[in-house]
């Protein structure tokens, strides 16, 4: 059965969306099924594509160089279609940590990272990370050394951004897939860094 949720009157923008969608369906521009499928695909998408790009860059210096020169092309090289996306990849180094925000709205490379988290769209994150990034990152549990410079990238116009995190120590010989598993959405936004999960302790009974 369809989940109808709790009744709440539509607000202005919801009403606009419904009216526009119904008109487009009525006029045969799109079908309800196509809209539902597109929404499902958008919701199902996570940061896997971005993570795959990061892992490839860790293993292949030539790919990394191409990625830093042209992020969109590097995405397409791995078979990820990103029509219209102008992606800039910012590389974290021992001297520089990068973090992404869109202070004007919520621009985000959705094609590679999926839907942005709620906090990314929130006014506190957008207004604070540009002026007190160290404090905001610490609230995410990321303490950046005062010796490391922080660069905050505001996606305020036509470009979109992704952070290439540093490969954690102790991952020598890891496969590309295993490395990609370390790269979370937050690592690609720059509010976290990849960590090797602690090996679960064998329980002694």
């Amino acid at each position, binding site marked *: 059965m369809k989940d109808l949720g709790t009744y709440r009157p539509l607000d202005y923008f919801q009403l606009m969306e419904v009216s526009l969608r119904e008109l487009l369906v009525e006029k045969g521009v799109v079908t309800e099924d196509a809209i539902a499928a597109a929404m499902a695909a958008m919701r199902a998408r996570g940061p896997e594509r971005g993570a795959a790009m990061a892992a490839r860059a860790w293993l292949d210096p030539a790919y990394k160089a191409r990625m830093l020169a042209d992020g969109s092309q590097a995405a397409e090289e791995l078979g990820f279609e990103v029509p219209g996306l*102008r992606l*800039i990849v910012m590389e974290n180094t021992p001297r520089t940590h990068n973090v992404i925000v869109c*202070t*004007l709205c919520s621009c985000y490379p959705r094609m590679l990272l999926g839907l942005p988290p709620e906090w990314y769209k929130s006014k506190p994150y957008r207004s604070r990370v*540009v*002026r007190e*990034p*160290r404090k905001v990152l610490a609230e995410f549990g990321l303490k950046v050394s*005062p*010796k*490391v*410079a*922080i*660069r*905050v*990238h*505001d*996606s*305020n*116009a*036509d*470009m979109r951004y992704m952070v290439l995190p540093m490969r954690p120590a102790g991952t020598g010989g890891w496969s590309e897939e295993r490395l990609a598993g370390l790269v979370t959405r937050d690592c690609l936004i720059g509010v976290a860094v990849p960590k090797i999960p602690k090996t679960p302790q064998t329980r002694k009974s």
Partner: protein
Amino acid sequence: MKSGSDPDFLFSPGDRVRVRKAAPLGHVRTPFYIRGYAGVVERVCGAFPNPEELAQQRDGLPAQPLYRVRFLQKEVWPGYRGNPADALELEVFQHWLEEQ
């Protein structure tokens, strides 16, 4: 001679520029917090239809040069504490930039 669709790029990476301190009405993609501040061109992004024109349902042409500009945090926020090299990078259209 430049072709009609090829805008003049007035700035290059490394140039010191200042964001105009202006408050025009309408849709503008230059955040208030950076207006009036000076920075250094980090890269040239290309030319893009002017968002201020697009918002008026015009074609936004001729396309405007767009730059990434790096600003030092300590120069933007009074009393900023952190690494002196901490920076903010924003995209600024050429018509918002003045030579510094």
